[in-house]
């Protein structure tokens, strides 16, 4: 399963948010999208998961243009953990997770025991299996985020798109969430704020600035102090990271 964006552009009125993005994610590769606030990470992801339509360029899943696929076909190919999951109405955790089976269902088909098994397994994976019948709105932000990941896993798609998946999570669950994503053995494209987590879990990073790709490479290649200074406007030092051949970034101060 590979994912490709070719010259994707998106703008609202006069404001160009994305200006010709090229991007390729290979089968089972984990690619992190980095860049400062407002660089277009979320917008690019939204174009990929189809809630926005690019003004130009195209996005391909396994070599087929997204526009040729029905929403159902693309939902079978990629699952999404979006940034905002604020719901007005109260569902149980199980109700929410079972919705991940939607693309696999005919319209009038009910939930089978098999669907429950898949949903329970996903809940267990994110450590929420004891919460099945809890009301979704009564959960903390971090718990909600994990339930949404469980829904995405329940979709059983070969590609995961995540927008800031570690927001609201405490450190244990940040690591756990990314471990689950890594161990899922699927193609992953995710926007990440935390450069250290990004370099620990991503095979490759793509840096965005003002709607353009300004750099790509393995974390070690890409994240030099000079590059970080140009992209984010902060000084930093790079030290050896927690795993073999990885890096850790220590941010020292903003560029004055």
């Amino acid at each position: 399963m590979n994912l490709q964006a070719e010259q994707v552009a998106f703008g609202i009125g006069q404001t160009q948010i994305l200006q010709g993005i090229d991007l390729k994610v290979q089968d089972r590769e984990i690619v992190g999208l980095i860049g400062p606030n407002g660089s277009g990470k979320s917008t690019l992801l939204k174009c990929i998961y189809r809630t926005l339509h690019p003004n130009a360029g195209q996005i391909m899943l396994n070599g087929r243009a997204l526009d040729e696929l029905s929403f159902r076909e693309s939902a079978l190919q990629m699952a999404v953990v979006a940034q905002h999951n604020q719901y007005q109405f109260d569902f149980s955790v199980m109700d929410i997770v079972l919705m991940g089976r939607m693309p696999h269902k005919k319209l009038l088909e009910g939930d089978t025991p098999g669907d429950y098994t898949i949903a329970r397994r996903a809940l267990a994976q994110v450590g929420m299996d004891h919460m099945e019948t809890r009301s979704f709105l009564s959960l903390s932000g971090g718990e909600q985020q994990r339930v949404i990941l469980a829904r995405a896993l329940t979709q059983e798609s070969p590609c995961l798109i995540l927008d800031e998946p570690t927001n609201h999570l405490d450190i244990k669950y940040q690591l756990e969430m990314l471990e689950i994503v890594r161990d899922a053995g699927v193609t992953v494209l995710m926007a990440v704020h935390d450069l250290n987590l990004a370099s620990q879990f991503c095979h490759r990073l793509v840096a965005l600035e003002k709607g353009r790709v300004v750099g790509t490479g393995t974390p070690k290649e890409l994240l030099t102090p000079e590059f970080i200074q140009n992209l984010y406007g902060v000084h930093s030092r790079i030290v050896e990271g927690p795993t073999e051949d990885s890096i850790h970034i220590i941010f020292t101060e903003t560029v004055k």
Partner: protein
Amino acid sequence: MSNRTHTLTVVGVGIILIALLIAGMAWSLFLGTVHIPANTLWQVVASKFVDTITIEDPRQGALNDIVWMLRMPRVVLAALVGAGLAVSGVIMQAIVKNPLADPYILGISSGASTGATVAILMGVGIAFGEEYVGIMAFIGAMVISFGVLIIANMGGRANAIKLLLAGMALSAVCSAFTSIIVYFANDKEGIQNVIFWMMGSLAGANWDLIGIMLLVILVPIVFFWSQTRILNLMLLGDEVAITLGIDLHRYRQLYLVMSSIMIGFAVYAAGIIGFVGLLIPHIVRQALGTNHKGLIPISALGGALLLVVADTLSRTIIPHTELPIGILISVIGAPAFVYLMIKQTYAFGGN
């Protein structure tokens, strides 16, 4: 509570409500200006179905008429309208993704009122025959529904906010139009008729009407029940739905049209009866959660029960006078709604 116990709870509540509904309907048949003893009532009802039971009362013709031509159609109509209002409340809340929506939120009641007002005060639509006020109200309701749909689709796809705003705008226009007609009317009796009509009444029930209502209320309810998945998804919004493979747009249009037809006919049959479509879905959501699998059937039964009871009270609470059912339901409904609001466990969907 596991999902299996949830299903059992829904079934259990459903059975209790069906029992209450049957009891309520029997109670309603029993009460009225003419006193009918319980065993006579039973004979009158049963004689329709079982040949061997015959009525030995000399007044059987009159009793038969009271039960079968007056009370029975009225009770059945109350149940159907109640079920229709409650379910379209549920549907409207899903369509506009707002727990505070009710069946009339998109201006249907204003459209119906305008239709009824021009019929009563200006005699428009007399050509439709005896039922012309109801028919004009139905036309008014439909014109507004489709108007809202068309306006909300201008300049890009309709979404919840555009639907609500279009509904408010058209509603305001209709209210203004109705007020002008009433303001310049010199017809005191006509104005009273308009007011009475706007407060709702089930007095017009007859078996022909029941035939139509069975079709236009029960078919949509069963249809909406089959749409549980999509309706659940609507509550989570367009973005989530797209990532799960569903484009809600055309479903929203379809549901809106079906729900409008249901409400249009309810208005035609019984005028405007508020609060049912707001109160019942809320009580059910609070008790059983917001999954439409349980919400739709239980709301339908709850709405039916509420209207049967309210209608019985409205025609018996003051001897020889009928209290408009709209007034009665608001009097019961508003305090019940406030009670829901101040109860800590339920946050009206907000948190």
